[in-house]
């Protein structure tokens, strides 16, 4: 069989990609400038940071955490607080995942030809939900729901719905289009195309975002404690402010444990689903 050879050199570089690249170049330059300007305008004190004395001082601080307070009375208190934090973050995340899933479809452009009329308003709603920090939501809700875990839970749920809605929408937009297109060609509606074709593909992604947000919310719930929502956060702020270092260490240990559990759950869930 004869090997056909091209007589001409075909490979002139096509412009479009390089155009895109160059837009990217400009973007990169802009980004670098922003970073440089940031560091420059902040007048950061690096010199003091890299000295033996600095390391020793930080070491002493960390050393104060040991040994953590393991008296049964305090452990019991921490366990109760950890449970409260876990409950707040779990319920908040669950509510948010449901809301996020419901908002992801209207917020996504499901295929190239999708007019996506609901996309802009839904995105606006999602943006608004997540622009308001959890702390502010909590403060707002504290007024109507009163002190206690409910306000914290709902604050987490509201803020997280905004976050998950957006992340879910993007995961849906990024999913390989093949399976969905096949069903769409058959005239199956958006919702069912999502359930039968897109969801199985993006499920690990959604799951890992949700579990990750749960983990995040454990930390956030800790911060919310400051606003009177209780849990590990209130304990942490209390003992940290009073320089009760061994007690602080116990609280930090509990937070570490919660985060590690959720991390392991997320790892396990992903392994289980992508096996």
């Amino acid at each position: 069989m004869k090997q056909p050879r091209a007589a001409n050199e075909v490979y002139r570089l096509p412009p479009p990609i390089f155009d895109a690249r160059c837009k990217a170049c400009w973007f990169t330059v802009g980004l670098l400038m922003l970073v440089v300007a940031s560091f420059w305008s902040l007048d950061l004190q690096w010199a003091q940071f890299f000295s033996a004395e600095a390391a020793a001082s930080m070491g002493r601080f960390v050393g104060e955490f040991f040994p953590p307070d393991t008296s049964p009375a305090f452990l019991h208190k921490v366990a109760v607080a950890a449970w409260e934090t876990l409950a707040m973050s779990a319920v908040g995340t669950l509510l948010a995942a449901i809301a996020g899933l419901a908002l992801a479809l209207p917020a996504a452009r499901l295929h190239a030809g999708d007019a996506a009329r609901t996309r802009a308003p839904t995105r606006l709603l999602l943006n608004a939900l997540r622009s308001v920090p959890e702390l502010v939501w909590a403060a707002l809700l504290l007024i109507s729901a009163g002190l206690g875990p409910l306000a914290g839970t709902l604050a987490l749920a509201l803020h997280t719905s905004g976050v998950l809605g957006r992340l879910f929408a993007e995961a849906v937009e990024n999913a390989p289009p093949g399976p969905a297109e096949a069903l769409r060609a058959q005239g199956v509606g958006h919702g069912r195309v999502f359930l039968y074709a897109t969801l199985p593909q993006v499920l690990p992604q959604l799951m890992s975002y949700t579990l990750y947000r749960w983990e995040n919310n454990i930390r956030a719930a800790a911060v919310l404690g400051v606003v009177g929502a209780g849990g590990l956060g209130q304990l942490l702020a209390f003992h940290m402010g009073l320089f009760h270092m061994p007690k602080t260490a116990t609280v930090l240990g509990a937070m570490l444990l919660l985060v590690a559990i959720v991390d392991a759950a997320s790892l396990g869930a992903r392994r289980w689903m992508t096996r």
Partner: protein
Amino acid sequence: MTTAALPAHTAPTRDPAWLPRLFWAGACLVLLWPLLVATEFRPWVMFEKQSLKVSGQFIASFFPPAHSAEFLTMVLKETWRTVAMATAGVALALLIAVPLALLSTRVLSVSALSGRMARGPFWLRQLARWLLIVLRSIPELVWALVFVRVVGLGPTAGVLAIALTYGGMLGKVYGEILESGETHATEALLRNGAGRLQAFFYGLLPASAAELTSYTVYRWECAIRSSVILGFVGAGGLGQQMDNSMKMFNGGEVATMLLVFMALVALADRVSAWLRKVLG
């Protein structure tokens, strides 16, 4: 040609996955109950007349947003400060996150190609994971206090605190994005003898670049929002002002700053969408 005409076997009548599904659904419901109790989940109390009235009053105090020239200049200055700290913090966080994420990604493990990861790399990966967990589960405030001791009050401690916690978060999420995408191409490269980094750049990155950048932009946006903690160590910023006005129930000021937050978030969204388009 013979096909189904030969009834060699008959259709099963039951889905074998049925019982486990039922069991897990039930288990979830049973687990949910104590959680709802612990959070005192009674959302209807919010819709009692008294509650509605107070929240209505507070929301009403949002209008008009504060717009005195002095306040606006202050907000402008603090906004830049916040943006600068968030940018610097995230930039430093990337230095921590990228190597750790590459280290902890299983898809890039050469030994895992053989089914099970070898012991050495397994523990190295585990170590990286734990490092990431510790980095992100210790609240920014604690880090900030550690750093105040050596760099004093001011933005340095705040930026470092953001860098460490966000390094932990970014590292973890990068790892997850890399692992939950399509890994077929990467595996093929590794199997054909390409190096780890090569496989990352030629197989994994093109498939998840959009996702990775959009997450990074999102984290930047979070850094802006979480600048409350920066105030703890005297770094200032919008978050601190917001916290202030919130505590004082100064609705007008809160409204102005929320508008600024929304604008920044919308900007981040725009950038993220554009990047997705370019990379996607």
